[in-house]
Structure formats: C-alpha cells, structure tokens
C-alpha cells in the first residue's frame, strides 16, 4: 500500500485550478515544502506559477499604502493595528527593515519596545 502526498499548495492548485499564493518569509514554495525536509532531498521544485510568493513586508506595505487614502474609525484602526502587529511578530528580524514607515506605524509601539528591549 502506497500513500502519495503533495505539498498543500499543489493540492489546492489542483482542486481549484487557481494558483495558491504563498504568504511567507521563508523563501519560495520549494524552500517551504521541499528543502525544509532534508529527508526529501532535492526531488523536485514547485514552480513559481503554481505558488507565487508574497512576503510579509510586501503585504504590510501594501496594506499601509492603501489605508492612507481612508479615514478609519477607532475600531477599524484597532483591528488593522492588531493584524499588523501579529504579522510583524512572526517576521524574521532580518526582514524588518523591508517594512516601510507607513506600515511600521500600524505596528503597536509596545510590540517594538518588547521586541527590542525584552530578552526572549
């Protein structure tokens, strides 16, 4: 009995005939699904057309850029700042500089303070 498997982004692509965008800072789909598992070796690569990548900084920068044209209510701003802060926390430190000032302004200052000043 043999059970074959495929990377989940490939599964979703096959199921819906729509590429599955990968929002990640871990490289591309091959890095996430193949190279992260050394036992797989370099068996195959997942092509970019199958799983185009959006990095977290690009997501945050797009959001911040778009929101500058809107007047947000307090509740709306709170929700969007919470999202930005949660995304920022999972961002590798070496990619923090790729987050531009308008997007950094969405991240709660207390998170910056904690991230830089409090030992992990």
């Amino acid at each position, binding site marked *: 009995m043999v*059970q*074959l498997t495929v990377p989940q982004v490939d599964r979703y692509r096959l199921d819906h005939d*729509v590429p599955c*965008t990968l*929002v*990640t*800072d871990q490289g591309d789909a091959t890095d996430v699904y193949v190279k992260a598992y050394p036992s797989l070796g370099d068996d195959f690569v997942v*092509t970019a057309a199958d799983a185009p990548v959006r990095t977290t900084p690009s997501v945050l920068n797009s959001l911040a850029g778009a929101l500058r044209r809107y007047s947000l209510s307090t509740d709306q701003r709170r929700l969007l700042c919470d999202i930005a802060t949660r995304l920022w926390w999972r961002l590798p430190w070496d990619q923090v500089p790729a987050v531009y000032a308008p997007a950094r302004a969405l991240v709660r200052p207390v998170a910056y303070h904690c991230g830089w000043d409090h030992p992990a």
Partner: protein
Amino acid sequence: MAEKICAICGQRRYPHEAQTNEMVAQAARLPGIGPQVWRMVWPDITASDCQLCGNPLVFRACRTGADWVLTCPAGHVARQAEHKPGGAPGQWSRATADDYKREVREGLIVPAGIGAPFPHRGTIRDTRRPAGVPDAMWSKGRPTEWFS
C-alpha cells in the same frame, strides 16, 4: 508551535497564524476598505465580482483548504492563498499518481531528474520491483503506484 508570552510585559511574541487569518478575514468585511485587504494578498486583483457567475466575491478564512480564499456564493474560487509565517511548517496533502502526472504535465512541479525518487513523505514504500520495470529504474525505490 505554542504562543510565547513575554515574561516582562505580557506581549504575545508568537501569535498563532490561525487567529491572525481570521482577523484578516474580519478586516476584509469592513465596509469600504475590504477590497484593500484583498489587494494586500493579491495586489493585481481588480474584479470584485465572480468572473463565472457575476456574484460578488467574498474573502474568507478557512480551516480546511487554503487559509484565505476569495470566493463567490456559488463556490467559484477566484483566488486562494496559504499563510506560512516564520516558524510555520509546510504541510502535505494526499495525492494520487494521477495528481503527480498532472502536476508534471502542467509544469507545476519539476522533478529533479531521471532516477530521483518521487516525494514520498509519509509513504510506506513497496520495495518489490513491479513486473516490466527495469531494475535500473527501480533502484531508487519509486512507489509502485507511479507505474500503474
């Protein structure tokens, strides 16, 4: 991976992506700015209605399938995205040999070369060489299903 809480100030230093995904979907439902949330994931999207049936598209966070989908009430998927922040492992789904063949045919995955084993994570390998398969091709232990 468990959420890490800062012992000094109580900040959630490792917020779980499942809740973040839900919050993004919540933001996508905010009147007026919803499509801006779509475009942070798919910056090239311009349509707000399904190209197949004309119904309005809705951004959803899902527990099964892709994390985020842009779909209409009829179930047509216009866009989909998987969220893998730092530390989130890649996961694998069940497939058949036909799936592999289709992926290779459509250029979705590119095998590393002749003789390389096909992906088999979680696979129980059958080491018996199928009839008609040259020994040289079987030396790497390809799953028999591939040849069926």
